[in-house]
């Protein structure tokens, strides 16, 4: 239970990654994500992916912590791949300008090397964001994250809302578990045996009490915040904000360089966002 509760939430371990400021991690995350989103060069994408997996290992994140997320993303990616193929099976041919048939499948659908290459590239492009996102989420203290969002110019109320959500997430999870157990005791069937329609109804049985108990919580917390002067000034300071240190600047430089390198590869080597091995 305890490991489950920690899922998706910040866990405090002392690693070089955890020691970086939240602002640094946010900016690095953005740099690297933009790099892989911009480029359709599988070499660049795989390099960034390898780099982020290395970081993942350095920050001592265990696979068990991210397994669920990985599974969801993989399901999404596989679905995406299949659908892409059905809707635009000739996309690869269009992009790379050549056509090497591998096999005729059925009807108008033919598998081409170009399409295969295009889809593999796309798959890795999206997949490479997972480790980046996981590192950011699991190594950043939510309040520190809020303070860094605020420093990038985002309104502090919005930034604080993010931190508050993360603060109360475990509470809501615990409520959810209690409510779901109580309803199961009354006979609610949450197993896969139940029909889909019934399962939807069952979900409501849990969500309605959850909303009501959360509303109580919200009233309390907003009173507590008012009473201690939240939102009276245009700005606020943060207890958890960290000063940027040398390692922060190094991390920022490295990510910025990776981003610039990606752009350079695109402009000077590939002369397009796509890497074309077929010419």
């Amino acid at each position: 239970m305890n490991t489950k509760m920690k899922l998706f939430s910040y866990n405090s371990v002392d690693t070089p990654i955890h020691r970086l400021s939240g602002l640094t991690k946010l900016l690095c995350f953005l740099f690297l994500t933009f790099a892989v989103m911009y480029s359709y060069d599988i070499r660049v994408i795989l390099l960034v992916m390898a780099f982020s997996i290395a970081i993942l290992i350095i920050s001592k994140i265990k696979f068990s912590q991210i397994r669920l997320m990985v599974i969801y993303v993989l399901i999404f990616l596989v679905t995406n791949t299949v659908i892409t193929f059905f809707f635009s099976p000739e996309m690869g041919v269009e992009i790379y300008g050549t056509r090497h048939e591998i096999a005729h499948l059925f009807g108008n659908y033919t598998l081409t090397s170009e399409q295969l290459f295009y889809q593999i590239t796309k798959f890795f492009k999206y997949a490479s964001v997972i480790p980046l996102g996981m590192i950011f989420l699991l190594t950043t203290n939510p309040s520190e994250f809020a303070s860094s969002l605020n420093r990038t110019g985002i309104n502090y109320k919005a930034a604080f809302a993010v931190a508050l959500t993360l603060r109360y997430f475990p509470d809501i999870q615990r409520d959810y578990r209690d409510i779901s157990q109580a309803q199961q005791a009354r006979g609610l069937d949450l197993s896969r045996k139940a029909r889909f329609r019934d399962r939807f109804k069952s979900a409501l049985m849990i969500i309605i009490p959850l909303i009501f108990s959360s509303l109580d919580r919200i009233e309390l917390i907003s009173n507590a915040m008012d009473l201690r002067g939240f939102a009276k000034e245009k700005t606020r300071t943060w207890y958890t904000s960290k000063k940027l240190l040398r390692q922060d600047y190094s991390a920022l430089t490295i990510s910025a360089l990776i981003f610039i390198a990606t752009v350079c590869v695109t402009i000077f080597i590939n002369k397009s966002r796509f890497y074309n091995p077929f010419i």
Partner: protein
Amino acid sequence: MDKQPIIDFQHFSFKYFCQAEPTLHDINLKIYPGEKILIVGPSGSGKSTLGYCVNGLIPFSYAGDIKGTLTINGVDTRQQNIFELSKTVGTVLQDSDGQFVGLTAGEDIAFALENDNVPHTVMHERVKKVAKMVDMQNLLASSPFELSGGQKQRTSLAGVMIDDVDILLFDEPLANLDPATGKTAIEIIDDIRKISKKTVIIIEHRLEDVLHRDINRVIVLNDGRIIADMDAHELVSSHVLKECGIREPLYVTALKYAGVKVTSDICPGYITTLKTELSRDALIAWHRSIPADNRHNRKPSILKIEDVSFSYDGIRTVLEDINIDIREGEMVSLVGKNGAGKSTLSKLLSGFEKEDRGRIFYKGKDIKDKTIKERAEIIGAVLQNPNQMISKPMIYDEVALGLRFRNIPEDQIEVRVEKVLKVCGLAPFTDWPISALSYGQKKRVTIASILVLNPNILVLDEPTAGQDFRHYTEIMEFLVEINKMGVTIILITHDMHLMLEYTPRAIVLAGGRIIADTAASVVLTDARIIKQANLKETSLYNLAQIAGIPDGTHFVQGFIDYERNLKNR
């Protein structure tokens, strides 16, 4: 004392916009700097509303009509906003978990400073200084999940003290705390007041627990009016408490039973000030006159827990070698501090978690293979917060839910639901929406929705938490009725009055082990058990000691037997 009051209510009335009647009527109250005031009153008396007026939540968050004036430090509150007021009045709300804004204790303490744009280094310094005052300096990096109830409350206290306010307002500080932590909380509040000379206002309905330390004046509110403003000795000697349904200290009840005339001459406000010279003989005579209650439950066992051990993560054991045998028709309380394993034990019984070792028998049969749904038909569990269980808008549907899940024909459902609604005193409300019910009635609905499945055992988690004396009595007498009908009842509780009055037997858990399984009178007079389980010895025991009655435990048991005889008459 300073002649200028720091808080001054003059002909003050308040009506919430959404309500037809005013909640506060013509309040006239002056509080002077440095005073320590206790405001008591039953639920709905307007005591929390009075607190909201002082801290500015009224009219800032809850709008309504104000008549008359309220000045704080000489300034009319209507000319100030909640932020200005928060520099004068610091409020500690009742739920110390829910009001924990930060992710760590340090951050939570710093919250007010953050909002004031205090620079980072200054902020850290001030947080350290205030944390030291409440003894939290070594826990600044802990998250709310790692802190105990008492530590969370210290954090809240530090969070308001950091602004150097003049007035500290505590809204039901004892709710959700175990007896020992509650006692410490009252001590901390008192110590802080002595050091800082701040004005302290405590809003609470648990009179006896607050009177653990000195109070200058007690203000009693009932139906939105101040009906008493006196010191503790006078109050305890008067009829006011009885009239508005606030529980008087137990030792005072005992004195009255013994025929002692309770007047302010014997200083009965605090057990420590009580003069017993005149009452000693009466107490001893009364004690001797009580016939021992020898009714023993000889019924067969209904629930037997044998050598049960459990751990969530396989590393830290939450329950170890638990052995309990409960007989049919018993009413038992399960006590112990937070994290002792009480809720976990109830989860094992309901089948939400599976024991690692040991066995659980229901009427001699192992229930290992029963599903959650099947177990619910023999052991019904009622959660503490009714809002966590209610999922239907109408009472009838809510109670019928469990039967509908079991595909019982609608005509049979009707019969069973109507029967259970009658038992629970909810028959007149059958067609009512649940939203129109009071908290106590909602609690009944949740109990009804479990009882409709005909379980023979009912496990209730803190059934009376946050309830005033009247609602407490209502709920407990209702449970006694059910118990008399043959339902075995297990109560998980922090409330020692409940233990003493309603459950002859108490099982005490500490650190995942059973450290006592005996009469409530023994538990609440045994220093070792009290210490290990964060309980507090009952004032009846102190009374026996002061009056020089050698066997205190016997005296407490006598009190229980006497009360039971009174009720059964």
